[in-house]
């Protein structure tokens, strides 16, 4: 047994807990989790059944933490879990799982499968079976501060551009600001309009806000790849930044996983509560809306639908705000079938979009999204996650669909009362 495999088993042993034990003992092999998983529904391949992805973990649990399992192993009645098995499971645990959590929602015995996949990834990664793309992303995050290698100075240049283009001031390292925004480098690279939109909205809402040079990146590939130690290191930067600037609220940008990592995983990773709140930008917008700080004018006339990012909605509990916000600015908002907490994943969450090996499968899985979109025949597709946006774009391109994609924040910003003169985009 190699040191890394040994360490992997060790970490899994550390992590296996009562809920996991309870879940494994509840499983009936009914296959309903598969019916909820787009990798199974779109391929029909039973190996993509979510619970099957956990086989190594289940066996490890049985062999380590049940008397029957220990005895079986003692008498040679069960094979120990091996490194080869981890290797074999790599495609199941990383390529065909977006941590979307839909399986956890439908399991009739209540098994939280996605939590177990996250657990298993912990071991797989340490054993050296994480996909190279995700390793690279993680490495870049640790080395440069951002998964895409975008440095603070690169961001500063973007900010300069925005200032030049729109005249909007983006505060940097403002101690005592009410809000601190962390953004996904995807947005910096692909959707700079997001930052502009936030600036406009903040201006209209008259809120103090800031970016932090030490902690501008929202996404946390440590959570994706499944290494808590790394995830902790990444989240700690934001915590340090926010606490240094003494902000009240950290706004997670339109990136679902980043929100999950910061909002739900972060305190558990650093093992203490934050001294600030964490809110997704959509939540913040909704708070502004409720306080009447969000004045819009006009409506998007084209039929418009919303893709609920898994981590925002199902895994994040943000279900209503986006709808209320949309209704402010869209006259023909339609819900896709299976919307809200039952929405289907774009197919690229959980680091899958970083994983080149998974691309083909991801595009197959997109069939599900296409069907959803076609069902409502929407002319616009809005979402609130940069990663979803990119994956959806890729998918639509691959599937030769032509539905314009928009971020929710940008859509709102487009209809802000004071920005009408400024034109759209």
């Amino acid at each position, binding site marked *: 047994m*190699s*040191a*890394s*495999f040994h*360490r*992997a088993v*060790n*970490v899994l*042993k*550390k992590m*296996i807990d009562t809920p996991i034990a309870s879940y494994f003992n509840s499983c009936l092999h009914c296959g309903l989790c598969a019916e909820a998983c787009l990798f199974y529904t779109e391929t029909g391949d039973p190996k993509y059944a979510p619970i099957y992805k956990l086989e190594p973990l289940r066996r490890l649990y049985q062999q*380590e*933490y*049940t*008397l029957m399992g220990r005895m079986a192993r003692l008498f040679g009645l069960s094979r120990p879990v091996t*490194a*080869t098995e*981890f*290797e074999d499971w790599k495609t199941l645990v990383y390529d065909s799982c977006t941590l979307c959590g839909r399986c956890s929602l439908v399991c009739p015995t209540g098994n939280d499968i996605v939590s177990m996949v996250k657990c298993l990834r912990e071991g797989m*990664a*340490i*054993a*050296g*079976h*994480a996909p190279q793309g995700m*390793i690279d992303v*993680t*490495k870049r995050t*640790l080395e440069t501060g951002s998964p895409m290698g975008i440095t603070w100075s690169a961001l500063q240049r973007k900010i300069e551009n925005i200032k030049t283009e729109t005249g909007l001031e983006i505060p940097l390292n403002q101690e005592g600001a009410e809000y601190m925004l962390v953004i996904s480098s995807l947005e910096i690279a692909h959707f700079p309009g997001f930052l502009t939109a936030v600036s406009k909205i903040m201006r209209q809402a008259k809120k103090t806000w800031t970016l932090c040079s030490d902690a501008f990146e929202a996404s946390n590939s440590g959570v994706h*790849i499944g*290494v808590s*130690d*790394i995830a902790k290191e990444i989240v700690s930067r934001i915590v340090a930044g926010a606490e240094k600037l003494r902000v009240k609220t950290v706004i997670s940008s339109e990136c679902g996983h980043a929100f999950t990592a910061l909002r739900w995983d972060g305190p558990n990773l650093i093992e203490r509560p934050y001294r600030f709140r964490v809110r997704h930008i959509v939540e913040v917008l909704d708070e502004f809306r409720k306080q009447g700080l969000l004045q819009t004018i006009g409506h998007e006339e084209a039929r418009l639908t919303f893709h609920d990012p898994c981590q925002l909605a199902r895994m994040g509990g943000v279900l209503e705000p986006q709808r209320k916000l949309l209704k402010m600015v869209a006259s023909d908002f339609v819900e896709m079938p299976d919307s809200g907490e039952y929405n289907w994943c774009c197919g690229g969450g959980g680091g899958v979009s970083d994983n080149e090996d998974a691309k083909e499968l991801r595009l197959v899985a997109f069939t599900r999204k296409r069907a959803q979109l076609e069902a409502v025949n929407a002319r616009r597709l809005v979402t609130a996650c940069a990663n979803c946006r990119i994956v959806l774009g890729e998918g639509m391109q691959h599937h030769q669909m032509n539905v314009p994609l928009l971020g929710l924040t940008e859509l709102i910003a487009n209809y802000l009362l004071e920005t009408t003169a400024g034109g759209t985009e």
Partner: protein
Amino acid sequence: MENREIEPLESSMVHGVSRRTFLQYCATLASLMALPSSAGVAFSKALSSVSRPPVIWLSFQDCGGCTESLIRSNVPTLEDLLFNSLSLEYHQAFQISAGIATEAARKDVVQKNWGKYLLIVDGSIPMKEEGVYSTTAGVSHYDLLMEMAKGAAAVIAMGTCAVSGGLSRAYPNPTGATAISRLIKDKPVINLPGCPPIPVVMTGVLIYYLTFGAFPELDALGRPKAFYGETVHDRCYRRPFYEQGKFAKSFDDEGARQGWCLFELGCKGHITHNACSTKKWNGAVSFPIESGHGCLGCSEPGFLDTGSFYRALSLPEKPIGHAVNALMAGAMVGGSMFMTNRGFKMVAAHTHLPSCVADLEKESGG
């Protein structure tokens, strides 16, 4: 054994039974045992022979009930058997002499009839402590049985005690009481269980043996199929009530008075192989179920150790015991799993080295 035949009429007149009645009796016996009518003729010839085949009856750890049951026989009567059909050469409960004279008579009979006599045994044999728990004339009953079995042509284990140990063998079997068939292996042994056996079963088998020199067809437990082939329930006159789900719930409720099925009062008729419901008892006047008490299962091995006589067969033999102990044992196992699992987890936590990005690219090997 060679029987000198005489005219049946003459013989039957001796004991005051008409020839017609006598032949009718033989035919009835044949039909009782589900034998062809030719067997009835064979019976009548054998029963009329002048030389009566020798039978020796030994009682060990018994209660006397089997002997009493034999005495209750109506067809044939004990008098008929003794005077006309067989020669009861030895039976302590009848023997006129006592002591030395009896012992001498026993030895004499064995010697005279070596290899020919039929040995009937009632009661079990205590095997603990070299058999000190049961002796006659200073001889342990085990030794006595083996001595007497040596010269026997065949052995009948009479009654549940001899067949399977009966009362003496009931838990905890203080004397090591043992069934006859476990001790005698080199002779044909037929088992006639029942506490006591039905008289006609005793006499029927006796007469069959005396006529044909062999035992009738036996089941896996060495019991004649003719009498033990069906369960008491199979032919019970109350069975229709069972089928209708009409059960007496108490011994003198309306159901009991209407003769409803006694299943819920613990009747063991379903699993008891015996002829009570067809042959009935004491001149076919009644049988236990007809008189309101469930079948005790007295012809089945271990019937005294099978839980309550009043608990329906579909219920557990007795209330669940040991549940608390089992829960405690489970708690102990669970507790030790808790300790070891916690230990493993703590070791895993303590030996965990923080992972860094360099760890991710390590190739795992074999």
